[in-house]
């Protein structure tokens, strides 16, 4: 059990470490677009499209990553005065709330992803970038985020 928990934490952290570098790719693409347009008068048709997909992956991974690094913010004005017992109760409440939110997202983003996959959705316009990979990744990222919540709950107990 403990091994599984550590395994999930490890996956979330490593995946995050790798995906965090995406921001450098996004930065590079933005700079390229600006230079290509201003310097060489040849703007791209793909820069923002690709960047949006990369940003999507970045954010989906970021949820779980922030979680295992305790970066999600709570208002601790009352919380810090609670006894450890109550804090455990709150961590269960937090878990229930996370399940409610992320569970709904997992369910609905799965149907969104499948729908996009079925129609092989592509971006409108001249650069027909497939949009389904990100939409299929959404439930995956959500699931990882949710598993992270399980890890955090069981660690707390």
């Amino acid at each position, binding site marked *: 059990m403990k091994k599984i928990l550590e395994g999930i934490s490890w996956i979330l952290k490593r995946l995050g470490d790798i995906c965090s570098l995406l921001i450098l790719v996004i930065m590079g693409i933005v700079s390229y677009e600006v230079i290509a*347009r201003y310097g060489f008068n040849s703007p791209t048709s793909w820069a923002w499209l690709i960047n949006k997909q990369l940003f999507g992956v970045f954010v989906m991974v970021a949820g779980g990553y922030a979680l295992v690094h305790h970066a999600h913010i709570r208002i601790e004005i009352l919380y810090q005065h609670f006894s450890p017992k109550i804090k455990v109760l709150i961590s269960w409440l937090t878990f229930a709330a996370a399940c409610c939110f992320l569970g709904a997202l997992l369910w609905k983003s799965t149907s969104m992803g499948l729908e996009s996959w079925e129609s092989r959705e592509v971006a*409108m*316009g001249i650069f027909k970038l497939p949009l389904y990979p990100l939409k299929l990744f959404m439930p995956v990222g959500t699931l990882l985020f949710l598993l992270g919540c399980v890890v955090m709950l069981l660690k707390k107990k």
Partner: protein
Amino acid sequence: GENARAAEKVYRMKIQSLYPRGDLSMETLKIFSDAAAKYSDGRLKIKIFAEPEIVPGDQLFVATKQGVVDMLQGMGGMWGGMVPVGYVEFNLPLAFRISEASTFKEKARVIRDFYMNNGFMDILREEYAKQDMYLLDIHTYGPVPFVLSTKKMTTCEDLNGMKIKADGGNMAYHSGVGMQAVQISPSETYMALKLGTVDAAEWDVSAVTGMKWHEVAPYWVQGMECDHAIGHILVSMKKWDRLPDDVKAAMHKAAEDYWVATVDAYEKEIAAVEKLVEEGKVKVSVLDQECQDKYADVAHNMWDEMAQQDEASSKAISMIKKWRNVR
């Protein structure tokens, strides 16, 4: 018994527009909703929402399919990634440029007749039905692309190398005559025109009446636009099938009123721009024949390319070619 109950039942439906409050659609959709209530003797209650009150615009299609709202008001170009013929339906370059009629209303009439009386609508309906959507009716957005520029442009030489903010298929259209198409969000366009990040931008007439781009880009470049770009109302097939026939008929009738309302509304918008032209705040800049011909060549190449998309597009485009007497 059963029938009486069905006759009493009130159908409450939600429609969301692809456009935010402040757009004309919020005024005209009220006419649609009121007409639907009137023709159905109060049994059809349609509540109107603007973008992004329930779903963001690019997600409206899939959200309607999923039942978040019951119908949407938008345009086919937006869902072209899923229903390719939508590009043809919305604004195939130069396809809906009607030289044989002169007034805004007459041109609208010619286009509506083409959609409704030749089986063109059936091709579209069939495609949307594959996505579980019912194509209720069409409406107009007036001339598209509505191009404003910071400099006077009358020849393709003037256009060459100019940066234009353009969307979707129109990026290829303007690139074809030597412009550089740039993707910029509409909300950043005013500043981009002001600071010279781009030299021109395209939208519909609300570029002037809504977003006031003419304050920073006063030249209204004409000669490459369709007289009417066509939008539509789509109803989730699941919800449509549940309606009794008389309510369906009421909705169809209301949608026709909606068409008339949009034609009137956009005619007024154009009149407002004409007034700005008289005041000298907007300056008309018509492209010369040579450049217009160049645009036409690019457009017709795009038609052929788009015909390759799928069978429906191919059928739709050959129908348009016959109608417009192109090759």
